[in-house]
């Protein structure tokens, strides 16, 4: 992690829907290569913030830069600099494994020869060579999620946003997924992740916890545990969000 280099800078971000304030003056930074856990109860405003940071929605006010680009004027550049994956939607089920990779890589404008080489490397690394011609629906969920993550960072984005990436995944695969996250972070990709698994919060460099539109706490897992005098992140979360 390179703490001198901020890839996400958020100052006083506000998002209102009519009278309802979904994001109430959020202020935080995320460093290059950092694994940043973005936690909060259902309805706390996480998805709203995530959509703004991905360039899909504009805030009501606030100064926000993602990958160095201004959220108001350079949203197309932001989209090219980030990757995104969620549990709900990740890959096209009626495309084959290699077709999914080619499709995503193509969207980001990568060259044909380059895509071909990197696809081979990726399939080998994930040990998916034998299933390259299978439809996504034929893969077990865990394999799909690992592939989806690799596809989301195929274009080597500065930041990857992961929205509950491990929901419903078996415990072994869930950990293999985190191995991929660590690897990406090691390679300098910033990982911005939401999860309902509190043990996964411990794997993050820093964690923020939202409640009712505000960031109530932001620190390393160790720092949060000592501030809230808690033995694990589950207790920290419960004392903030309950």
């Amino acid at each position, binding site marked *: 992690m390179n703490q001198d280099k901020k890839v996400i800078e958020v100052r006083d971000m506000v998002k209102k829907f009519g009278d309802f304030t979904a994001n109430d003056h959020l202020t935080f930074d995320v460093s290059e290569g950092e694994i940043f856990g973005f936690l909060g109860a259902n309805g706390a405003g996480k998805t709203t913030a995530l959509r703004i940071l991905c360039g899909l929605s504009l805030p009501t006010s606030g100064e926000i830069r993602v990958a160095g680009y201004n959220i108001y004027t350079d949203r197309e550049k932001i989209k090219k600099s980030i990757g995104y994956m969620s549990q709900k939607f990740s890959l096209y089920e009626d495309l084959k494994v290699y077709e999914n990779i080619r499709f995503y890589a193509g969207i980001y404008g990568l060259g044909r020869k380059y895509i071909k080489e990197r696809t081979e490397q990726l399939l080998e690394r994930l040990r998916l060579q034998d299933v390259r011609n299978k439809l996504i629906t034929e893969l077990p969920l865990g394999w799909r999620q690992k592939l989806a993550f690799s596809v989301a960072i195929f274009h080597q984005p500065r930041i990857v946003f992961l929205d509950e990436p491990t*929901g419903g*995944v078996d415990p*072994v695969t869930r950990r293999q997924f985190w191995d991929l996250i660590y690897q990406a972070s090691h390679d300098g990709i910033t990982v911005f992740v939401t999860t309902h698994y509190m043990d996964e919060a411990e794997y993050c460099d820093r964690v923020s916890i939202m409640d009712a539109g505000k960031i109530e706490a932001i620190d390393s897992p160790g720092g949060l545990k000592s501030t809230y005098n808690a033995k*694990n992140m589950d207790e920290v979360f419960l004392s903030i969000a*309950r």
Partner: protein
Amino acid sequence: MNLTSVEIREVSKNYADVLALNSISFQVERGELFGLIGPDGAGKTSLFRILTTLLLPDEGRAAVEGFDVDGDFREIRKIIGYMPGRFSLYQDLTVEENLSFYATVFGTTVEENYDLIKDIYIQIEPFKKRRAGKLSGGMKQKLALSCALIHKPRVLILDEPTTGVDAVSRKEFWEMLIRLKGSDLTILVSTPYMDEAELCDRVALLQDGKLLSVNTPSKIRDNYQQQLWALRAENMYRLKNDLAGYENTRSVFLFGRDLHITLKGGNTPEELHVWLEEMGHQQIHIEAIQPGVEDCFMELMSKEEQNQA
């Protein structure tokens, strides 16, 4: 007196060439809070759809309160309450309309069984004129549970009620279930969250259509035959990678701030400590620990894989 509430005997189910349930057998006693624990694709929903008479098994038999799922499906439907994984109340009916609809369908009234749902329903009563589709996730869940209970079922079947739900609502939901327990009501609940296993009287661990184990959470933990160590050091990323390549590592998994590791036969934590120091690790901390259900689940998964190989 233990009476069998749910009996599943050698039940198998195929979808095309996928074996969703592979000869599953277990029993649930009356009044038990029984957990079906496993990831997506384990077969939890298929099993629940068989018990709720929405799906027939290809092989084997299943019975609920003595009624056969094939022959006696009408009786079963009267005595079970079912909360499917997907929110399936009427979105354009209000909270109270949904509740009275479900009561009427089962030939009863909200008043008659209000005691059973009072603790839960009271929390959403302020919103009783609101359409179900406009409720928050936590409130929807409480309404769905109320609707599943309003006809005073003998068996309550809850399919992943806490999936996608935050840690606070998850805890609240389990507190509701534990309060419901104790009467004659049998509760079957499925979940992919291993920590929820500890809250059940007994659990079935399920993976890829196979039953890994059926027991109380404490017996499952007792059956774990390895010595488990919790391990941390300053650089956890490097620690994990080094241990994955260490010749005496039997298994190593991330667990919150620690790694959980088992060593090959005859190897001591002292040797491990020395080796880690040689590798340049700092602030090494090794501690003997008791396994949780998640450790046991992963151990059983790897045994199952070895059996297949």
